[in-house]
């Protein structure tokens, strides 16, 4: 296994990335994406460890810093969900595929990185799979947004102590109809036209957003055509919480699950003739 740190040009910026390639010819490339703020290796070296585990299965990977994050250039004060990060991810994926010399791609992301991953799958026909860990899928309305924001203030304590007020707020948060956010709306079904899309949630993530997202995902799945539905997998693990990966056991579980899923999807025997390749120097 070898690792190559790179600055990938992207418009006027340079995106930092690390390409990991197996000693034997790579069967495919996996793009590893983080949520807002985390650098390419992710917390606790999660993606570094995942990349090295994938390399043992002849799968190359590239992990990247978005603009203004990690060692990338640019200034980032407040990213917007689904903003130019998708363009950045596609640029890095294409650079990685060109260097490795493969036409096979999969993408993995967590939190907002999972939304970007879905976007990559929708935009790149050569993307065979997207793994989405703990993504928030819902577009909140004004009332829900205000309720979410209020959780951080003193009034939240008052609400938690009062049963009737708590019921009112919970009813507001769960009773309104949820709709997918714009980036999810744009990419969910187009991704499933050609790629397998895997979602991973945990029973232990109690963020109301997660509960809403899981319910919404079930609703979205029910409306899919049989062909698209066959490419969708939703898994809820009993381990967790996944948020922040703040347990060594959860980190190990996530790495193992991601690697097993990708190995299953991208078995070398499935590779089209000539797809296996070595990196171009």
């Amino acid at each position, binding site marked *: 296994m070898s690792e190559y740190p*790179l600055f990938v040009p992207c418009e006027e910026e340079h995106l930092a990335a690390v390409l990991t390639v197996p000693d034997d010819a790579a069967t495919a490339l996996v793009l590893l994406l983080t949520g807002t703020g985390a650098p390419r290796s992710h917390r606790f070296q999660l993606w570094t460890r995942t990349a090295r585990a994938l390399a043992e299965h002849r799968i190359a990977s590239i992990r990247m810093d978005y603009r203004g994050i*990690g060692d990338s250039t640019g200034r980032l004060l407040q990213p*917007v969900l689904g903003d130019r990060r998708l363009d950045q991810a596609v640029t890095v994926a294409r650079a990685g595929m060109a260097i490795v010399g493969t036409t096979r791609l999969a993408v993995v992301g967590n939190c907002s990185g999972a939304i970007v991953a879905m976007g990559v799958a929708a935009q790149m026909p050569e993307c065979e799979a997207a793994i989405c860990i703990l993504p928030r899928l819902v577009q909140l309305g004004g009332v829900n*947004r205000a309720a979410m924001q209020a959780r951080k203030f003193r009034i939240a304590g008052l609400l938690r102590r009062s049963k009737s007020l708590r019921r009112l707020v919970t009813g507001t948060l769960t009773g309104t109809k949820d709709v997918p956010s714009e980036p999810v709306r744009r990419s969910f079904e187009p991704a499933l036209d050609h790629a397998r899309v895997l979602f991973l949630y945990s029973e232990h993530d109690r963020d109301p957003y997660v509960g809403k997202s899981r319910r919404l995902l079930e609703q979205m799945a029910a409306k899919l055509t049989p062909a698209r539905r066959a490419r969708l997998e939703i898994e809820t693990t009993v381990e967790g919480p996944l948020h922040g990966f703040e347990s*060594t056991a959860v980190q190990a579980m996530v790495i193992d699950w991601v690697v097993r899923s990708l190995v299953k999807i991208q078995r070398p025997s499935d590779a089209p003739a000539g797809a296996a390749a070595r990196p171009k120097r």
Partner: protein
Amino acid sequence: MERYRRFEDPVGGFREEFVQPVLGLGATVGVLARPMGETRAVGWVISHSFGLEQVHLGRLDVIVARALSAAGFPVFRFHGQGYGDSERGMDVAGLSSHLAESVGAVDLLKRVAGVEAVGVMGARFGGAIAALTADRLELPLLAMWNPTVKGGQFMRDFLRSQVLADIVETGEGGGASDLQSIQDQLSTAGWADIKGWTLTKGAHDEIAAVDLLIGVQRFRGSALVGAVSRTGTPPSAAAALTKRLRDLGAAPSLHVIQDPNAAQFGQFRWRTVDGGQSKRDTQLELNEKLAEATVGWAVSVVEQSRHEVEAPR
């Protein structure tokens, strides 16, 4: 692939190159930032903090490195073992590994063409590593931002973060008994899972024993003690360290930067806004202020030292 290892930023006035040296116990990834224009003879090594603070303060290191390079200084930053793209895992990270890597990084930078003297810098625990490295190698320059002066306090806060997480998760526990149970686990198992970080007993004990007011003994150079404060009053630890350095015969400069988010310095810096629809970096503007203050100080001490050398006797 070679052409992707470096880039130039003519507008920013710096260029950067990825390097993959062996530092401490294994190979790692670092970035050498250099000026586009005239290069000064002084280079800087940036030592990062411990645990998840390496992630939270990582962008500060990048912003400072680029600002210093634009001002003419070569700067080297890197991932220590157990962090980022390094070869080894969290279980090897501790005071010894951080110090060995910092010393190795100084040695690496000294071999860069044109670099005649090296200074070290860092935030929080990285500041402590910078101080101990500067002391051990008797370097002429040192810069720290909210340095960890007492390792015992740093470790207690580190362990408490797990206790607090347990309280939030389960609604139970808290207090001295839980801290004791973590200490017991460190003693019996040799390690403990602290919010996802593998903390070994060796790392805990080494770091807990750090006391810069005793441990720094030989440093006689110029030092920036940067203090981030909500009120504008420097933390007592920074003031005590400044006095200690002065007593040793060094030339410390205490610089206070007032910021409403000072208490969160070194912690998760992305605040959810717009009802959870977006996040905002609460530390970006502070990082830029720290970079500006550091560059101003570095340029002034280097210029002053040059004038003293050039002045007719």
